[in-house]
C-alpha cells in the first residue's frame, strides 16, 4: 500500500490537476460561435421581457395602478397596494425588480452584440444573421433604455459588455445622452432587420417595423414632432402591411399573436402542465424553479372570478361616457364593452361565458359596492370559461400596435399645429374600427385637438400600460391623478407628489453603487 500511495502521489502532483473546467456549463469564451448558439443568446435577451418587474406579471400591475386605470380591491396587498396609493418607498420590490430586469435585458443584449461581433461567420447567410442578431439586440436594448429613461430620467448608460467589465459602478448619464443612444441604436438596427419573420418559427421577434415604431415613439416622447411623424408614417406604407384588426376584441384574445395590427408584442405561451412549467413562475421562478413557462399572470390576477386584485377605476369607466361628438347627447363609447364588465349604463359587458358549454352568465354587478364594481374584461377570457383556476393565459401583452402608431402620428401632427383632416382622419380611423361615432372635427384649436387625442388614447389603449407614460410625458400626471383620486369612491386622496414624476432609484442600485448614490437628491432620484 505504501508503494501504491507514493506512485499515485507522484502521479497526481501534475499541475493539470489544478486546471478544472466546469462540468455543468460551457465556457463563455468559445460557446457562441455558431448561428444556433448565437440565436440562443438572442432568445435569452427576449426572455428578459418576462422577467420579474416586466411582462409576465408586474409590469401591468405597476402601470395600470400608477396610471390610475386600475385600483386596488381588498385583495391587493403589499408592494402593489403601495404603488396603487403612491405610498411606496425607495425599497419597493417591484420597482427594484423592474430596474434590475431592464438592465439584465441591456446586459444580455450587450453579450449578443459582443459575441456576434467576434463570431465572424463565413457564409453570406450567416453574415446577414449576425447583423440581424445585433439589430435585434439593439432593439431590445433600446426598449430597455426607453423604459429606463422615461421612468428614472438620468441613469447608468452601459453601452457594451466591455463597459461592464471595466466598471461595475457606472455613474448616471443625463437623459439626453440615453435618448441619443436609443436613437442611434434603433437607426442602426432598422436596415438589418427583416420586415417579417417566418410565421411558424420566428413570429414575435422584433422586425424592421418594431424598430421603426420604437424610434418614432422615442422621437415623440422627446417632442421631436416632425421626426416622429415622418418615422411613424413609414409604418403605414410599403413594405409594411400593418392594419387595424377588424376585431378589437381579437387584440386581447389568446390568438392575438396573429393579428395584423401587431408591431411588437410580448409572446406569452399557454401554461400546459406542471411537469413542464410552474404555474406560478412569474413570482420569481423564471428560468429556474419555474421550469419552462412563458404564460401571463394577468388574466388570473385581474379576473373577477379569480384573484381579482384590481378594479377598473370609476374614473376610467366614466371616461367612456362623453357627449356624442356629432350631437352632444350622452354617449357611451363601444370600447367600454371590450374593456370592462359592469352594469348596463356604464357600457361594460354585462354577461360572460358566452361560449361556455353551460351558456352565458350575467356579470354579478354589485351596485352596492362602494368602490364601484367594475372589473377587467380586456386580456381576460371569461367568454370561454367561468374561471381560470390558475395562471395560464397565453394572451400576449401589447408593446406597440398599429392603432397606437396611428394615434402617435396624429399627435405629432397636432403638436406641429396641424389639427385638420390628417390627424382627424387617423383618429376617426381608429374609432371606426370599433364602430364609435366619428369626430366631425378636432375642435378648431390645438388644445382642443390635443384633448380629443388624449381622450382617444385613454379609451383605445386603456389597460395597456401606456397611460402612465402618456400622463408623465404630457406633464399632467400630478393634476390628473390627484383630481381623479380625489373624487374616486372610497379614495379621496391626492397622493401624487412632485417627486413622483420619476421613479425612485431603487435601493438595490443605490446601496451597491456609490457613484449613483452620491448623485441622488432627497433620497429619491
Amino acid at each position: 500500500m505504501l508503494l501504491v500511495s507514493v506512485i499515485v502521489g507522484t502521479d497526481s502532483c501534475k499541475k493539470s490537476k489544478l486546471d478544472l473546467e466546469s462540468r455543468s456549463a460551457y465556457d463563455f469564451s468559445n460557446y457562441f460561435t455558431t448561428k444556433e448558439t448565437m440565436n440562443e443568446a438572442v432568445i435569452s435577451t427576449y426572455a428578459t421581457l418576462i422577467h420579474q418587474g416586466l411582462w409576465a406579471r408586474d409590469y401591468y400591475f405597476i402601470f395600470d395602478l400608477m396610471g390610475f386605470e386600475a385600483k386596488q380591491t381588498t385583495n391587493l396587498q403589499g408592494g402593489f397596494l403601495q404603488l396603487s396609493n403612491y405610498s411606496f418607498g425607495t425599497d419597493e420590490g417591484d420597482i427594484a425588480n423592474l430596474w434590475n430586469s431592464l438592465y439584465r435585458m441591456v446586459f444580455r443584449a450587450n453579450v449578443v452584440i459582443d459575441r456576434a461581433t467576434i463570431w465572424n461567420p463565413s457564409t453570406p447567410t450567416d453574415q446577414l444573421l449576425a447583423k440581424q442578431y445585433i439589430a435585434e439586440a439593439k432593439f431590445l436594448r433600446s426598449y430597455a433604455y426607453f423604459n429606463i429613461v422615461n421612468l428614472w430620467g438620468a441613469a447608468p448608460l452601459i453601452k457594451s459588455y466591455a463597459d461592464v467589465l471595466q466598471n461595475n459602478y457606472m455613474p448616471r448619464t443625463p437623459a439626453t445622452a440615453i435618448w441619443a443612444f436609443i436613437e442611434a441604436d434603433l437607426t442602426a438596427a432598422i436596415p438589418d432587420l427583416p420586415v417579417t419573420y417566418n410565421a411558424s418559427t420566428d413570429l414575435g421577434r422584433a422586425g424592421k417595423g418594431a424598430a421603426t415604431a420604437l424610434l418614432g415613439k422615442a422621437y415623440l416622447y422627446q417632442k421631436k414632432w416632425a421626426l416622429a411623424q415622418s418615422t411613424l408614417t413609414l409604418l403605414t406604407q410599403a413594405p409594411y402591411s400593418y392594419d387595424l384588426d377588424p376585431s378589437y376584441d381579437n387584440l386581447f384574445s389568446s390568438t392575438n399573436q396573429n393579428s395584423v395590427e401587431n408591431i411588437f408584442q410580448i409572446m406569452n405561451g399557454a401554461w400546459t402542465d406542471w411537469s413542464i412549467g410552474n404555474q406560478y413562475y412569474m413570482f420569481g421562478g423564471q428560468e429556474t424553479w419555474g421550469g419552462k413557462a412563458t404564460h401571463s399572470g394577468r388574466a388570473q390576477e385581474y379576473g373577477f372570478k379569480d384573484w381579482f386584485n384590481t378594479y377598473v377605476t370609476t374614473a376610467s369607466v366614466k371616461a367612456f361616457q362623453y357627449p356624442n361628438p356629432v350631437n352632444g347627447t350622452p354617449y357611451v363609447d363601444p370600447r367600454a364593452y371590450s374593456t370592462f364588465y359592469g352594469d348596463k349604463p356604464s357600457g361594460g359587458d354585462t354577461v360572460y361565458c358566452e361560449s361556455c358549454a353551460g351558456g352565458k352568465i350575467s356579470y354579478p354587478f354589485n351596485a352596492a359596492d362602494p368602490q364601484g364594481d367594475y372589473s377587467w374584461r380586456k386580456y381576460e377570457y371569461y367568454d370561454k370559461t367561468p374561471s381560470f383556476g390558475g395562471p395560464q393565459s397565453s394572451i400576449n401583452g401589447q408593446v406597440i400596435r398599429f392603432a397606437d402608431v396611428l394615434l402617435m402620428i396624429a399627435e405629432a401632427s397636432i403638436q406641429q399645429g396641424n389639427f385638420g383632416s390628417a390627424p382627424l382622419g387617423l383618429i376617426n380611423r381608429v374609432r371606426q374600427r370599433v364602430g364609435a361615432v366619428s369626430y366631425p372635427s378636432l375642435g378648431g384649436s390645438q388644445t382642443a385637438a390635443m384633448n380629443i387625442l388624449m381622450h382617444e388614447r385613454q379609451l383605445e389603449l386603456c389597460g395597456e400600460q401606456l397611460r402612465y407614460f402618456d400622463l408623465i410625458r404630457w406633464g399632467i400626471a400630478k393634476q390628473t391623478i390627484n383630481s381623479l383620486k380625489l373624487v374616486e369612491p372610497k379614495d379621496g386622496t391626492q397622493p401624487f407628489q412632485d417627486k413622483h414624476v420619476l421613479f425612485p432609484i431603487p435601493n438595490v442600485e443605490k446601496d451597491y453603487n456609490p457613484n449613483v448614490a452620491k448623485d441622488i437628491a432627497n433620497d429619491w432620484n
Partner: protein
Amino acid sequence: MQKTKTLKLLKAPLWIFISCMMLSSFAYAQGPKITGVISDKKSGAPVARATVAVKGTSRVTITDDAGRYSIQAAPGDILVVTFTGRVSKEIKLGSSGEMNIVLEEDFSKLDEVVVIGYGTSKKRNVVGATDIISAKEAGATTSTNPSQLLIGKAAGVQVIQSNGTPGADAQIIIRGTGSFTSVDPLYVIDGIQGDKNLFNTLSAQDIDNITILKDASSTAIYGSAAANGVVIITTKRAKSGVPKITVSSQYGVAKAWKKLDLLNAAQYVDLLKDFAATNNTTLPAKFNTPAVLVDSNNWQNNILRTALVSESNINLSGGSEKVTYGLSLGYISQESIVEKFSNKRFNARIYLDEKLGRFHFGQSLAIRQTKSVGQTASLTSAIQYAPYKPIYDKSIPGGYSIESNVEDFSNAINPLQALNLEHPVNTDYIFFPQAFAEVDLIKGLRFRSQFSAEIGGNKSTNYKYPYTLSNYLTSPRQATLGYGSYSFYTLENYFSYDRRFGNHTVSATLGNSYIDPGESSGLSAAGSNLANDNVQNISVAPLQTVTGTSYGYAHTSLISYFGRVSYTYNSKYILTASIRRDGASNFGANNRFGNFPGVGVAWNLSDEDFMKKASFISNAKLRAGWGRTGNNSIPTTGITSVLTFSGSPAGNAVYSLGSSEAFANGTSINTLANPAIKWESTDQTDIGLDISFLKNKLYMTVDWYNRKSSGLLVQVPIPGSTGASNTGGQPSIYANAASVVNKGIEFTVGYRGNAGKFSYNVNTNFSYNKNKVLSLGDRFSAPIKAEGITYTTPGSPIGAFYGYRLDHVAKDQAEITALNAKAPGGVFQDGLLPGDFVFKDINGDGKVNSSDQEILGSPIPKFIYGFNAGANYGNFDLNIVVSGIAGVKVINGIKSTTSMEANGHNATTSILDRWRKPGDVAKLPRAGQSANGSGNLRPSDWNMEDGSYLRLRNITIGYSFPKNIVGRITSTNIFTGIRVYVAAQNLFTIAKYTGYDPELSGNTYIFSRGIDGGALPQPRTIMAGIQLGF
C-alpha cells in the same frame, strides 16, 4: 568554565536515554543498595513500572508489579522517581536501606501527548495556543453531535447551534470572524484533513479528545485550509487486552422553553379593522358575523409538541499486542419540537491497528446514514394565522382550512397544512474510509502515507397530496425523486524525524498532500397527473420530467508541500518553524500557489533556576508565535472565467416564438469573472502564558492575539445596473476585497482538587474579541450592504447593523406640523403621518433623511465565556456546562410579524400598544400605515436587541454502581460497570431577547449574521440514560 557546564548539560539526559533502552535488564550491582515500594497517594495502591533513577548517574531501574524497586545508591544521592500521570519526585537519601515513596497525581499534563499538524508533541513542547478537550470531561455521554462537546470549553471558541431542528449542525467560530466566505475551521480527523460534514459524521461517543489549534504558528502547517483555526479530532482507539464492550442508551423529551403571547380572535379582528381603515378598504363580509370572534385555535400550541429523543450506542474493542480492533455502533432518533419532522441517524465505525516490526498500519471506516422525514411547521405562520380558523375544512381540497384575501383579508398560511399534505423523505449516507501506513526507516526517521476518502450521497423523495393553499392557489398531486452522490479522496505522504542529541531535541516533518477534486452529480425528477393517492411515488406518474441535473466536482483540487522543524534545548527553549505551499484549482494559473509560513517560540521559564525559589509556581511557559494561513473557499469553477447560463436546470431559459408560441431555448451568462482573484491570507500573532500553581492544581492560560486578514475573498453584491444576475437576484462578483482585523484576549483558569472521596474540577474561560474592517480595497470602496440592514465598512465590524435610530411614535398632526415648522425645507421626515415612527435626527441638521443613519450594533460578540465543572463524590458524578456571549446585538426579524402589520395577519400581544387615534402615546405605529422599507420598516434599531445570553447547556448527574453491587446484581459477573444518569440540556437561559431564542447563526452568508428570521429555538431536553460495561 563554559566547557564544563556544557558537558554537564549533555550528561543529564543520558540516564533517560539509557532507561528507555535498557529498562529492567539493568541489573549490575555494586556498593550500597536502597529498596522500597512506590505507591499512589490517591488510591494507596503500589505503582508498577515506575522509573527510579539516581540523579547524575546512569543507574536506573523500574518497579515490579508490587511497586518494589531496588537500586544502588549512597546517602547523599538523589533518587528521581517518574511515572506517567504522576508528579516526578526527587528525594535526597539520608541513609541506605528502605525508602518508600508516595507519588501524587500530576495535574500539569505537561507530558501529555498533544496532536498537532502532521504529528504529535508533548504539551510541554507546544509553542502555540491550543486547547485540549477530552470527551469524557466534556460530557460526551449526552451529546447528540460532536460540536456540542466544544460548547463553553475553550476560550475564544464560539459554538452556535444553527437552529433547533434535529440533525441541524453547528457553526464553530474560533477567534472571531476573519474571513468573509467561511468561518469554518479546518477539521482534522485522526491526522487527516476533513471538513465540517465529516466532523458531524462522527458520533460524539467515538471521540476521545479534541484539540483546537488557535494560533497561526501551529496552524500554518495546514496552510490554505487553516485561516479559521484547526480542530483536531482524535477518535477512540482500542487497547490490547480482553475485548471490552460498553453499551449505553438514553431517552428523553425535548420541549420549547418559550412561547410568545398571541392575540385572541377579538383582538385580531380589531387589528384587521384598523388595518383596513388605514388602507381605505372594507373588511370582507364575514367580519360582520360572530364567527370571527371565536377563539378556535392557538396556532403556536398547535404546532409545538413534546419531542422524543433517544440514543443508543455499542462499543466493542480489544486486541493483542500486535493487532487491536474496535467497532462502534450508534443510533439516534430525534423529533423536532414542532410538528412534524423527525431525524434518525445511524453511525458505525470499524477500526483496526496493526504493528509489524518496523511497520505500523491502521484502517478505519466510518459510516453514517441519516434519514429525515417530514417538515417543520413554521413559527411565523403560527403567529400569523387567524385564531378563528379551524384546523380542518372539508370544503377545501386537501381538507385543511385556508385563508384568502377575498374572504379573510389575509393570506397567511395554515401552519399545519403543508406538513400534513407533503411527505418529504431525505436519506443521506457518507462513507469515510481512512488508512495509513508508517515505517521506521532509520533511528528517528519515519515515513507515513495516509489516505482518506469521502463518499457520500443522498436520496430525496416527496409526495404531495393535491391541495389548495392560501388565496386558493392550487398545488397539484405530485411525486418527486432525486439522487445525488459525490466522492473525492485525500492522499498525504510525509517523513518525520525526531531525535535527541544530549540537550538538543530536533524534530522535522516534510511531506506533500493532494486532494483530488473527485466528482459530484445529481438528478431529480417530478411526476405529475397521478390518478390517485394509492401509490405514492413517481413510478406511476404518467408525466415525468427531469427537474434538475448537476455535474461537478466534490472538492477544490489542492496540491501542497509542507515542512516543519522544531528545536528544543533542554526542554526549556523551544523553536518551531513551518512552511506550506498550496496550489488550488480555484485560482488562475498565475495566482494558483500561495506560501504559508509560521514560526513560534516557547520558554519553559519555570525550569530556570531563578524560578525554582518561587515554589508556589509549579509551571510557567511563555509562548509567542506568528504565522500566515490562507483561504480559498470560493467555488471551484466559474470564478476566473465566465460560464454560460441556459436556465437552472439547463433548458429552462425559454421564450415563446412562432404563431403557436412554442418554446425556443436561450443561453446567456449571469456572472462576471474575476481572473485576478487570488489567495486570501491571514497573519496572526499570538503571545501566551501558561502558568500553574499549587502543584498544578490551579492553572491559568492567557493569550493575546492579533489576527489580520487581507485580500479577503468576498462575494460582493454589485449594482443591478450591471445586469449580471438571474431574475429576482442581485448581481455579485467574487473578489479579494477587504482586510479585517480581529484582536483579542483569551483567559482560562481552572482548579482541580480532591478531598477524600470528593474530587472536582472547575474551569472558566473568557475571551474578548474586537472585529474591525480595515479597508474594502480599491475596487470596493463602497460599503457592502446586505439584507437591508447590515453594513460593512472600514472602522466597523463585519456585517454591522446600520440604520436609523427610533425616537417615538408621532402623536398627532400638530406634533408633525411643529416638527416641520422647524425643519429646513419644511419637511422634518418625508411621508411622516400621525402614528408613524419618528426617527432621530442624528446629524442634527433639523430633518431626518438618509444621512441620519449610523452603525447601530455588531452581530459579532465581544465576549464569549464558558464555565464547566465536574465533580465526583464516591460513586456520584456531576457535570455542568454553562456558556454565554455578551456584547452582541441581534435583529429580531420576526418583529415585523409580531409587532407590525404590513398586511393582514395575526400578531403578538405587543401590537396592542399601537397608535390608533390622534393623541395616542404608543410604542408601535398605526396598523398598515407606512409599513414599508422607507417608512416605519426602514432599517433601524427598532428591531435590534441585545443578543447576550447565558445558558446552562448541560447538567448531568450520574451514579456508578460499586463493583460489589454490580457483582451481586449479575451473579455471572457479566457486567464490569453500570452507570445511570439524568441530564438536562438548556435547562435555563438568561437573556433579554424578546424573540424565541437569541442563539442565532442566522444565514451562513457572512454579511447577514445575527438576523432572526423565525428559526426554530434550541429545545430544553431532559434525558435519562444507562451505561453498561461488559
